[in-house]
Structures are given as structure tokens and as C-alpha cells.
């Protein structure tokens, strides 16, 4: 099939491309689909809610969402293990080359995908090219009190560490980069490098099943690197060679729902 279309074949062999810096492991065997990560992410990152009508158009703004799929029919019906889906922070990110204004760029220092809100002009090319469908677009001024005056009191909760995005801007998971920076600053002031466990994104912090592990994947001894060695590990849509930084662990290895 790929030969028929004469698609270019991506190769990624360099050491740095494989190692990366920040990474995550999500254990689908543990994820109970409870949505605590979604809630925590939205509260941490000033993610707006869009309301029933816009949600019906698929405009909801979740930076992380829980997916599940079905197979079979009753009574032989099976649900796949819950699959938290968020920006995979690909090294070969399909969203990056298509941005005409360089708003979707790769961070050279943190090795994550960035979305620069002040550059973004809202072409939505990046979202269209994202195989994981994890980029969300501000179709309206969801957080602007001038547009939605009834929300004024809710704005007291907005975090000053994260930009409040405006209409026409694309956004996505940042691996809680504000927390990474803060941990780096604390470590620098204590004259040490970042230790394993210094950075916990909001989703991993909230997860009641502890299904999400985050840390440095360039450190082979970190908890996340060790967890990624698990035989159940795989990458989402690995065949696209996007080099995602999130390793999923297959759920229910000896169960019928797997």
C-alpha cells in the first residue's frame, strides 16, 4: 500500500531522536477511565469548557481524553482498555512542518512540541495533520468575560502560570511545561540537576490508579525509563514513525477484555 502511494519513508536512527528528554508511560491495565486526569489537566492549564452545543460539533477542548473502543456484539462484546490520549510530543511531529507561521515548533531544549500562541493564526493545518487528533482549537473566546460575562467569577481560578488563550488559536498538551520550568528553577537554585520525580504533570499527579508515570527518558534509571522497558510497551501508531515520547503499556494481558 505504502509502495503504491510512493510515500517517503522516514528513518530515524540518531541516538538523540530515540532518547529524547521528557517522556511518559501510561499503563492501560491500571487506567480505570475515571477522568481525574482530564479534570486535573483542565484545572491546571486554564482549558475552557465549550458547552453542550459546541461539544456536539466536536469542539470540546480536552488536552487529554479517554478513548475506548468496542468489538463484538452482546454477549461476546469486549471493550478495549481505556486509552488516555494526549499530545505524544513526537520527535518527528507531523504537526510541525505544516505550520505556515512556525507556531508549531519543536523545542530544542526540552525536546517537546510547542505551540506558540502569539504566532498562531489559526490555519488548523497542524490539527489536520495530527494522526492522534490531540490538538484543539479555540473556536470562540471561551474564557473571555466580555464574550461570556456569566463566567466572570469562574475566572478567579485561572492559573497565572499558563496563558489564557484567545479565539482562533490552536492549543494542546504541553507536558505541563510550567511545572518543568519551575522544577528546573528550584533545582538550579539548589545547585543540582533535576532529580527523578521533581516534575509531575497535573494528570499524573491526580491519577488515582497511578497509571501515568512521567520523567526523564534520557536517564535510564528513572522510573519512567524503567517502566517503558516493560514487555507490554508499545507506541501509538508506531508505523507512522512519529517517534512519540509516550509509551503505552497494553492492558489486561491475561484478560478477555484485552
Amino acid at each position, binding site marked *: 500500500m505504502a509502495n503504491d502511494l510512493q510515500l517517503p519513508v522516514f528513518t530515524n536512527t540518531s541516538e538523540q531522536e530515540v532518547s529524547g528528554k521528557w517522556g511518559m508511560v501510561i*499503563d492501560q*491495565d*491500571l487506567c*480505570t*477511565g*475515571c*477522568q*481525574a486526569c*482530564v*479534570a*486535573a489537566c*483542565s*484545572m*491546571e492549564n486554564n482549558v475552557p*469548557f465549550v*458547552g*453542550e*452545543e459546541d461539544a*456536539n*460539533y*466536536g*469542539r*470540546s477542548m*480536552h488536552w487529554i481524553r479517554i*478513548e*475506548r473502543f468496542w468489538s*463484538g*456484539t*452482546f*454477549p461476546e*462484546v469486549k*471493550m478495549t482498555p*481505556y486509552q488516555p490520549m494526549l499530545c505524544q510530543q513526537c520527535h518527528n511531529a507531523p504537526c510541525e512542518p505544516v505550520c505556515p507561521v512556525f507556531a508549531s515548533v519543536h523545542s530544542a531544549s526540552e525536546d517537546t512540541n510547542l505551540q506558540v500562541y502569539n504566532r498562531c493564526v489559526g490555519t*488548523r493545518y497542524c*490539527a*489536520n495533520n495530527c494522526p492522534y*487528533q490531540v490538538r484543539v482549537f479555540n473556536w470562540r473566546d471561551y474564557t473571555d468575560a466580555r464574550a461570556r460575562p*456569566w463566567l*466572570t*467569577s*469562574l475566572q*478567579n*481560578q*485561572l*492559573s*497565572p502560570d499558563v496563558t489564557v488563550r484567545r479565539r482562533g488559536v*490552536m492549543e494542546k498538551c504541553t507536558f505541563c511545561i510550567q511545572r518543568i520550568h519551575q522544577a528546573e528553577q528550584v533545582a538550579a537554585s539548589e545547585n543540582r540537576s533535576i532529580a527523578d520525580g521533581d516534575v509531575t504533570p*497535573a494528570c499524573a*499527579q*491526580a*491519577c*488515582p*490508579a*497511578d*497509571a501515568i508515570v512521567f520523567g526523564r527518558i534520557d536517564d535510564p534509571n528513572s522510573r519512567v525509563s524503567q517502566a517503558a522497558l516493560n514487555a507490554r510497551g508499545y507506541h501509538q501508531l508506531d508505523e507512522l514513525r512519529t517517534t512519540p515520547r509516550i509509551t503505552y503499556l497494553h492492558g489486561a*494481558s*491475561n*484478560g*478477555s*477484555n484485552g
Partner: protein
Amino acid sequence: MSPEISRRDFLKLASVGAATTAALTGCGPASRYVTREPYVKMPEYNYNGLSTYYATTCRECSAGCGLVIRTFQGRALKVEGNRDHPVNMGKTCPRGQITLQGLYNPDRVTDPLHRKQRGSNDGEKMDWDAAVQVVTDALTHNQPNEVAFLLGMTPDHLFDMVSDMTKAMGAPAPIRYGAPAMFESRATLVQAAQTVFGQAALPSFDIGGADLVVSFGANFLEPWLSQVSQTRGYRNLRQGTPNHRGLFVQFESRMSQTASKADEWIPNKPGTEAVLALAMGRIIAEARGLPLPPAFATADVNQAASQADINADDLKRLATILGNAQRPLVIPGGQALAQSNGLQTAQAILSLNAFLGNLGKAGGVYLSPIAPLEDAYHRPASAKEMADFVGTLKKGAVKVLFVHGVNPLFELPKSLSFADALKNVPQVISFATFPDETALEADYVFPDHHGLESWGYQKVATGSNASVLSGAQPVVSPFHNTKATVDLLLAASQAAGGQIASALPFKDELEYIQSKLSTMLSNANGFFTAPEINSFTAYFQQHGGWWSTGDDRLAPTAADALNANIGASVSQFDGDGEFFLLPFVSPTLAEGGANKPWLQELGDPTTTVMWNTWIEMNPQKADEMGIQDNDIVTIVSPFGALEAPVYRYPAIRPDTIAIPFGQGHTAYGQFAAKRGVNPVDLLPQKYNEAGDLAYAGVKVHVQKTGRARKLSKMEGVLGVYGFDAKQ
């Protein structure tokens, strides 16, 4: 584009426009005109420009999870779990995270109100002195037995204070109720523990220590007793023991969020859990070559399987696995207890545990620790007791009703007609933080602070090995002109004088809480001790509560459990409809989340539906009836009817329909009101022998209406273009 403009011209025009726009928007930050107001008096433990963190207790449900709230310049920004807290160990559920949208909810009751006409939206604002006078008059101008308090599951310090007050007055003790208690069937669990173990305590299931969990309808990964601690147990079940993944089997007529995590989901017919449990006991006893205990003697394996509409071989296979497991655990809960035979089901399952020999052992059944300040576990009122209370109200025996933390107009089955009962109460005083249905029917609303603005404590009923008193403190100053209900009642007690005033000689809420805490100073089991009350209170605030360092769970004994004939049979159903009705608590909203917009926008874990109520129906059955997704159907039970769109749910029995509880508010703020339907409208006045509502004990008719309403859901509409996968 007008044909008169060529593409080239258009581009020229566009580039001029773009340059102008760029130049104008480049003029500088819009925040230029923002002003910044520093603290007038900054708390001295704050650091200018840095966040301050406060430990407190979540009030979204009664589990009593410890929270640490990040605040900045007097605003609460983020909820995090308290890592040291033995219930949640640093973790939270979605409702805990979104409690901030309750604190800053635009629809809060901002001032004390006097409502001239019940049910009308506008009330007259009062000042708090007048409010104290109203409460004082209500306490003094009525006979003590004409005063009634109806309280919610949280907070416990208010319940204790009202208990002290009513005792001093000679009034009836406050009644505690909440929809969660109804859906959790707490009375049934406690009654079954009394019968089987001889102790009326809440059983505690060590999910994390087991290697095989068989759950009969227990939704322990959803809002059921203590979701966060049970999810931690689930984690340990799967991965707590290296290289040994514990197994999990769920019997339930619908694949709930919990059942979706099971290795095997067995869709049994509702109401057959008791006979299944006893049949499993019989199979194990026979396989082990033991004399058949009387409890299992009447069980018939093949009959049980056919009654439950499951494969007898499956039942035998699972029973064999259960019998061979090293640390087996069987959990009763959910719809299994909400049947006419719910008590027998709970007894059968606890007896099965006793037979498997897991009582008081790792991975087995314990009794939950008794919380500090308690002599025993005091459960909230069962639905039967609520029905009796509603009867008292109907007779006009109550002249003034105080309501706090509970919304009976929404939570009680409509067939109990609480609304009519309320008409016979001359004065209703609500302490609601949000304008819920009951507050709308109250003559006065004296709003309490939000949980994050409040002092308090919560006695942890279950979910921890240790005995825990979870502490709450204000993390921000009150956002509106609200007053702590304890403060209001203390002021009114002092004004009333006499017995009440001398029984409650406290100047404010904190002093009352300290009077309770002072009994714990010398308790050496705690992880901290203090020589005097002020230091103790300081530690209590700092750590978010007090808990013991040991394992305070009690090991139950069941000497005679297996000698009794439980006499379980299949449950009886009201109504002659073709479908079993299965109401379940919405995993994201629970009973009080509907007014928080982000909770509304969380997709339901199994269906991904947001912002509305749906009816789950088996797709094959729906095909037979010609029902598509989003088609609105009418559900008719003998007690009521409602309309909602259908979600064709692949994992539900064809003879069952399920509907979530949590929506269907008529008030409760802009995000909740007039959204979805409330399944309690369909529920019978039928109780099991422990007095819990048999909410899953009704059969209903389903009729097409010919109308449709598209449900908002995550699945099928992903991506920025919002395409529908089916088109």
C-alpha cells in the same frame, strides 16, 4: 468573491489589510490598563509573589479525601491531593479537582434571602443579624419536637454540633441523608454485617491485597463509598504483587465503568446475585469435599444459572477459580443490593467470604475502622427511614425544618412526594450554598460557606486502614456574604438562652471544633500528639487531619454465619414492563456535580456522553424496536415516566435499560437546570429488608416518541473539523 475582483486584486487588497491589522495589533499588550491590588494585610505566613498551600478536606462526597489547595494572592487556583492523607494518598477524583468550579460558581447564593413565595426565584436580601433572629425565633417559638433538622453526608462537625443542640433542646436528633447513601445501600451493608458478623459496622474490602476479586454489582471504581482509595486497591490488585496480576470478575447486567476493567464480565439477570453467590459456595464446598454448610444447602447450581440467564459451565468454572484462589474476595454492592432481596444478597456474599476464610486477612473482608470521636459507625438514614420522616412532615408534626447539605426534592424518589410533605411544614430554612431545588422551596436561605471557605472535620467511614479524622480549614476568605452554618446556629443558641445556650458555650465554629478535638490530645495512637489544644489544632490544620499510625480495621468473626439458612431467592420486581430498569450514579457527576461546567464536559467513561442524560439500550434490541442513536424514547414505570435520548450501548443485557443519575435538575444554577432527566422519578417505594430503596427493582415500558435529540459525545466527532465518523 465578486466576479469583478480578480484573484490578483484580491490578494493586493488582502495584503494591505493584513499589514494594517498587524500594525494596529502590534500596539502593545492589552493588559497595559490592568491594575494590580496587593493585599491590604497579608497573612504573615504568605510570601509576596509566591503561592501558599493549605491542607483541607474535600466536601464533594463524604469519603473524606485530603486535599492541598494551591492559593495565590487570596485565590484558590488548583486542587492537589494530600500525599500524607491515608484515604487518598495524594490522589483525587475528578469531582475533587473541579470543586473549584463550585467555589467560584456564578450561581452561588450570595446573601441571606427571605423568600416571600416558595418556588419563586427572587427573594429579599437580609442581613445576618436578622437571619440569626429568624433562627432564634424558630428554635424558641416552637415546641422542641416540632423542630427538625435534615442534614447531608458532609460535614461531620455540623452534624455533631446539631446533635448536641437538639439533645440540649430535647428535639429529635438530626436526620442524615444523601443520594449516595441510597445508591451505596449503606444500610444493607451494615445490616448484613450485623447479621453475619454480629457487628453493625461498614465492611471494608481489601481489594489491593486480594488475588481474585469477584464483585456482584459493586461499582468500586466509581463514586461508591470511597472511590480514590478503592482505585488504589485496584492498582495493587493488578500490580501490587510483582509477577502476579490479580484477577477481577464482575457480575452485573450492564457493563459499568467498573465492569469494563474486569477480566470477565458476566451479564446476569438483575436480582439473581444471591442465588449465584450461594451456588458458587456450593460448588466450592463440593469441590473441596467439605460437608455442605446449611447456608449453601438449598442452592441449586443449574437452576441458579438458568435463573440468572448465564451459562452453568461459566458459573462452575468461575466458582472453581474462586475456590482455588489464594486470597479470594467477593464484594456486594450496586444494583445487587438495590433489590427486594438485597439484604439476603449481602448476607449470602458476606457468608461466602466467611466460607472462603478471608475474614480479617490480607485481601479479605474487614470492618472499617471506627473514626475518632465515634463509638460506632453511624450510618445515614435509609430510604425507608426517610419515607417515615416524610410521613411525619406530611402529618404537619414539624413546624420548622432546617435543611443543610442535602437536596431531597432532587434526590428522593418522586413517589415519596417530598414536595407535598414540604407544603405541610410552615417554615423551611435552608442553608444551601447553591440555589438547589430544595432551597428554592425554602422560606429562608441562609447560605453556608463553600467547603473550601469552611472550618470543619469529616470522620472517615471507610477507605483507610487507620482511624482518620480529616480536617478542613478555609483556604480562601468567603467570596460572598455567606456565614458558616455552625456560627449561625451557635449565635442563635446563645440568643435563645436557657438549656441550648449553656450546652453550647462557644463563641464560634473553631472553638466548637477545638472542644471536640481536645478529647484527642492524649491519644497516643496518632501520628502527632500535642500538649495543649492550640498546638494540636495547628498540627491538625497543617497536616489536614489526625490519623492513627496503626491498622485499626477490625477482623470480623462469623462463627454461625454458615449455619443459618439465608433462604435467598430471585428478587421481585414492580411493574410489568419488558425492561429491567437500572439507574446508576453518573461516574463523573455523582449526585451534586451537575452545576460544575467542567464536570458536565467530562465524557462519561463508557459512553463518552457529555452534558445530558442518555438511556442505554442494547443495539440488537434497539434494532428490533427500530430505535436509532439519539432517538427520544419514553420510559414508563408504574410510578412515573420520563423522556430521554437513546445511546445504543453494546454491553448491556437486551432485557435491561440503564439510565444515569445526576442530571435532571429544575434549579441548581445555569449549568444544571433544565438539562437531562432524573431517573428517581421512575423509582418505586419499595425497600429491601434493611430499609434501603430497591431502586433496581422495577420493570418499565419503553415507547418511541418519533423525536430525536443529538447527544453531545466525545466519540465519533473528534478532530477540529468535527466530522461525524458515521457520515
